[in-house]
Structures are given as C-alpha cells and as structure tokens.
C-alpha cells in the first residue's frame, strides 16, 4: 500500500455554498503532505471530512486500504485550527480524558503522558488548571494530546500559530521525528517557509477545487522557467550586457553579493542548455555567480491561484 490516505472525488455543499468540489488527494505513507490554499478555500472542510466530523455529499475516503469507518478515529490525531481546552480542568485530568476518548486505557495514557511531559519539560504542569497557563503552554499540551495515541495519520491545521519561534522549532522537530518513526502527516498552513522545510508533497485547493498537487520537487520542476541567475565580471559592463542580450533572453536583476558584478537573469530557450550558457559566459568574462532559479512554494502558490 503506497498511500496511507486517499480521498476520491469528495464533494460537500452547505446549502448553496460549495465547500469542496470533486476533490481527490493521495497522501503517500510516511510523507509530510502540505494542504495549501487561501482562506476559505475548503481545506478545513476536507480535513473535517477526513476526521469524520463532516459527512461528504459524495465521494469517499480510504485510510490504509479501508473505507473510512468510525473506529479509524483512533488512527488519526487531529490538531484543529480552532483549538482549546477546558479552562477549569486540570492539565493532567484533561489530557487523560482526551487520551481515553482516543481509545487509550487510563494506565497506558498515564505512562505516555509522563513520557511526553518530561520530553517537553512540562511535567510540573500536571495539577495546574488551563486558565493558569499561557496560550503557548496550552498549545504544547494540545500537541501532546494530539500525538499521544501514536496515530498513523497526524493532521495539523496551522500548528505553529500561537508558538514563539523557539517552541515552534521544538514542535517542528517533533513533527519530523514522528515522521521518521513512521507517521504520515497532513499539514495545513499559510506559512510557506514551513512548507518548504517540511513538506514532501503538496496539494493546493482554491475556491473548493484542487488546482495543483504532487511531489513538491516535481511541481517545482514543472513551474521552473529555465531561468538562471548570473553574475559576471568584465571591465565594461554595459557592452557586456548588450553582447549577452543579443545571444540570450536576459534581463537585469539584483541579488546580494560581495562583488560589483553585472547581475542578470537569463531565460534559456528549449534548445539551449545550461552548459552552453556557462561556457559562453566564461569565454567573455569572469563568472562569479551561476544559479538556477527554482520557484519557491510561495511563488507557485501565488501563481497557481492567479492563473485560476
């Protein structure tokens, strides 16, 4: 079984409003899958369908080869975007309760909680009430509760909101560690830098439709424009620029460097190779910078949304 989760042609309407229109995604086992999209695109609805909170109007979801059933909630850990805890309940009691709802026995939950509380250095919070904790502290507990039952599938909706950079990093490392231990992660966010860092696969949902999905590297390949960022040194930069422009599709650009060189973006045509360009450039000047421009997730996101 290659994919842990497959959603097939899932549609959901709320009255006249279409929240999801025929959306299919495949989440490979052991991957970190980025579910991206602007606000109100339908990401949360899709996540709720996977969590069986919302029933789809049509389409179906397969988890680990089986059609989604109610006992599968044990195999999923979900950290929703709108999240919170019972304010007047003690941390330990609350974590135990939520763990038991996920099917853990009380004794087992206690052992695992102890492990996690020590790991995240929050052991002395056990008898505190949530209302005594800061938002970030409460988020940590929520993270623990989400992963405690060691689910096959973890779903994080904006997991880093509410964390300071240090704790965000801590949580990011924990997510990667969980992935190494075999968990599959669905990750929904607007923060593109964390997508670049974490995700192997992405799907982009826009206005209830999936407009893009696949391996992040494949998508980047698909979106790259064969453009190279070039720095070259020669006595007369203006003439040099003109000479290059005659032969290649070049435009002036800027990037940070230590030298005062000529900075160009050169877009190669179908029949031209990077080697041709490089050997031409070395023949006319001193090349100090030569890099292929790979579109960032952010660029792809913006471009894909614009094109639709």
């Amino acid at each position: 079984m290659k994919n842990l989760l497959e959603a097939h042609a899932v549609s959901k309407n709320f009255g006249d409003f279409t929240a999801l229109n025929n959306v299919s995604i495949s989440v490979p086992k052991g991957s970190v899958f980025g579910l991206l999209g602007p606000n109100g695109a339908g990401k949360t609805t899709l996540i709720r369908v996977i969590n069986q909170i919302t029933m789809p109007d049509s389409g179906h979801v397969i988890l680990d080869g089986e059609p989604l059933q109610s006992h599968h909630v044990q195999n999923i850990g979900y950290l929703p975007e709108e999240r919170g805890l019972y304010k007047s309940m003690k941390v330990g009691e609350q974590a135990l309760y939520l763990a038991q709802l996920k099917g853990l026995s009380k004794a087992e939950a206690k052992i695992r909680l102890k492990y996690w509380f020590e790991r995240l250095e929050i052991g002395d919070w056990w008898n505190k009430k949530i209302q005594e904790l800061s938002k970030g502290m409460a988020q940590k507990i929520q993270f623990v509760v989400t992963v405690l039952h060691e689910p096959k599938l973890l779903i994080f909706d904006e997991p880093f909101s509410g964390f300071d950079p240090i704790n965000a990093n801590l949580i990011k490392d924990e997510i990667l560690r969980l992935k190494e231990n075999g968990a599959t992660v669905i990750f929904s966010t607007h923060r593109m830098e964390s997508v670049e860092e974490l995700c192997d696969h992405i799907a982009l949902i826009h206005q209830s439709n999936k407009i893009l999905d696949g391996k992040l590297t494949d998508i980047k390949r698909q979106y790259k424009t064969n453009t190279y960022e070039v720095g070259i040194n020669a006595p007369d930069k203006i003439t040099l620029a003109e000479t290059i422009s005659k032969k290649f599709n070049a435009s002036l650009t800027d990037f940070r460097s230590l030298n005062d060189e000529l900075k160009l973006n050169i877009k190669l045509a179908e029949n031209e190779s990077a080697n041709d360009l490089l050997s031409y450039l070395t023949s006319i000047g001193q090349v100090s910078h030569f890099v292929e421009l790979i579109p960032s997730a952010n660029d792809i996101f913006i471009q894909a949304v614009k094109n639709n």
Partner: protein
Amino acid sequence: MNHLPLIIKREYLTKVKNKSFIIMTILSPIIMIALIAVVAYLSQLNNNKIRTISVLDESELVTDIFQNQEYTKYNMLNNVSLDDAKTIVEAAETYGLLYIPKQDSVTALVKHIKFYSKESPSLSVISGLESKLENRLRDLKLQEQGIDLEKLTASKIHVNIEQESFIGEKTSKIDSYFKLGFGLAAGYLLFMFIIIYGNMIMRSIIEEKTSRIIEVIISSVKPIQLMLGKIIGTSLAGITQFVIWIIIGSVLMTVVSAILGIDLMQQTPQNDMMQQAMENPEVAVEMQNAMSAFWNLPIANLIIAFILFFVAGYLLYSSLYAAIGAAVDNETDTQQFMFPIIMPLVLAVYIGIFTVIEDPHGTVSTIFSFIPFTSPVVMLMRIPFGVPVWQQVLSFFILVATFMLTVWFAAKIYRVGILMYGKKPSYKEIIKWIKY
C-alpha cells in the same frame, strides 16, 4: 466505540467539583431554612405573648364558657360598672375587655356585645370569641323555645357522601385536595428541574464552544454521544444536588427546631384553634379521612408515572436546550431561542392549575395531557385523579417518540452549530443546518 460512560463521568465530576455548584448545593438549603426559622421565630415572638382578656358578663349567661387556654387567659370581672372595668383593663394593660350586657332576651343580647381594646384586636381572637359565644347563645335560644338540647344533640346527623367509582375506587373531597397537592407538586418540580438544569446544560455547551475544545473532542467522539453524555451527566449532577438539598434541608429543619424549640411548621395561635377543632368529633373524622385519603392515592401508578414522565419530559426539553447552546456563541444570544421553550412549559403549568383542578378529565386537560410538550406536566397533575392506563401509555409513547425526534433534530443542529463561530444564527439558518 462507546465513549458515553466516559463523557458522562467527566460531565458529572466537573459539575460536582465546581466551586459554585458546591456552594449553591450547601448554601441554598441553609439559607432557605434560616429564612423559615427567622420568620417562624419572629412570628412566635409575637404569639408567645399570653393574651389576657377581661370579661365583664353582666348577663351571667356565658360566664362558664371562658376557660383558660395555653396562650389565652380570661379574667372574669364581677360587680364593677362598665366604665370602671374599662379603666381597670386599660390600667392593667391587658389585651382587651369583652363586655356582655344584661338584656331581656338572647336576641337582644347578641346585638350589644362589645370588645374594648387599645389597639384593634387580631382577627383570630375576635372570631374565636364570637364562635364561643355563638355556640352558647344558640343553645340558650333553643332552650328558650322549649327545645330539648339532649334530643337535639342526639338527632344531629353528619352526612358524608362516600364517593366510589364503578370499579370500586373510593374517593372523597379530602382525596381531591391530596390529589391536587400531589399533581401540583410533581408538575412544578418538573418545571423547576427543566429550567435549572436545562440552563446548566446549555451553559456547558456554550463553554465548550467558547473554549474551542469542541473540534478536538468531536474528532474522537460522535456529536450525538457528546450531547447525550452532557445531558445525562448534568442531569445526574442535578439529581445529586436535589438529593443533597433534601437531606441537608430535613436535617437542618430538625436541628433548628430542636435547638430553638420552635415548631417551624405550626404557629401558636392556630394551635389553640386546632385544639378546639380537634375536640370537635366531626373534624377528627375528617382527619382520619385525610389519612386514608393519602393511602387511597394510586401510589404505585403515581410513582411509576412520575419517574417515566419526569425523565422523558426532562430529556425532551434538555435536548432542546442543548441545541440552543450549540447554535449560539454566548449566553446573551440565547434569549430569542428561550421563549419558544419556556412558552409550552408555562402553558402546561397554567393548564394544570386552571383546568385540571376544575375538571381533571375535561377536554382541555385531556388534550394537553397528550401534546408532548405539555403532557409531562399536565399528565402528572391528572394522574392522581385516576387516568385510564391506555391514556397514560399512549401519552408516554407520544412523548418518547417526540423525544427521539427532538434529540435527532437537536443533534443535527448541534453537530453543525458547534463548529459555527462568531455569528448569531437566525431561525432560518438553523432550519438550513438540518439539511446539511
């Protein structure tokens, strides 16, 4: 997976361990009893005073009827004029002076009896004196007319029509009072229970919404399980509170009345009246009737019906409270939805009070004892008067069917509502949610 017991346990424990709940549970009966004790104590202070009534009986017809009682003493004045008597009584600061002049006939006498006092006397004192005098003077008048009193007493007949239904159930007037009392108590108890604990359920659902824990929970639990768990858990906490209230209440009642030596239930001048009444053989018979009336109530039927209708009626309403809690974001938004819930409840209580008393088996009371939203209250009020079993069963099934329908309906609203944040829904939107 069945998480219901776990949810019920949590709901119950959080409610019961809640500080304000504990304080309310302990303080309410204490405050209630303290209030009763203070009122009883104060009125006793008032009545403990022994009243001395001076009597100037110039007619010498009624002198022997004024026997001292526990709180009322009679001081017989002899051989003084009315004016002197007034001066004496005023100087002695006793309660007042009863003046019975000498007249030619009893008929003339009754118009001239007077009571003098500094302040206007209490109604019970005057009516007590009046009835004493009436009895004696009536006898005298009868004698005047040559009627043999002994024969008269012997010929006295007390008719008490025994009421019996065709299947042999005996009833009486006093029975009716008992039935009415039970019906009103049961109906009112249900009414109070729904309002107090329905609100509690609603608040706890709103709390889950505002603290945003709801989505975490319903990713592991079916919304209907969560809803039922909340309703049952809160109701159990409610029952606990009720039981504790009754226990603390009765213990305090006993303790307070023992310590203060006051009889909280009865006040003293009435005691004298009661004593008088008890001496009357007719009243004694009535008291016995009352005791048997209690045992005449269809007790088994009452208890079973009370439990069934109470539970079903309460669950019916609490599921609606749950739906409202899910639909709104904060308590102030609940107002517009509360009215349609409170309406049928209040209606039921009024129908109970006004029509069931008049005619327990009349058209109006019968119809409303079948309509599910009023039936728990109205049926509970009707049952003591004897409702055919088929009617009870039918009404109960209608109630249970409606209950299942409202739970289904409430669960629909609930599962959509709990995920809606930040806006106050209209009725139209809520109806739309049901189709989602």
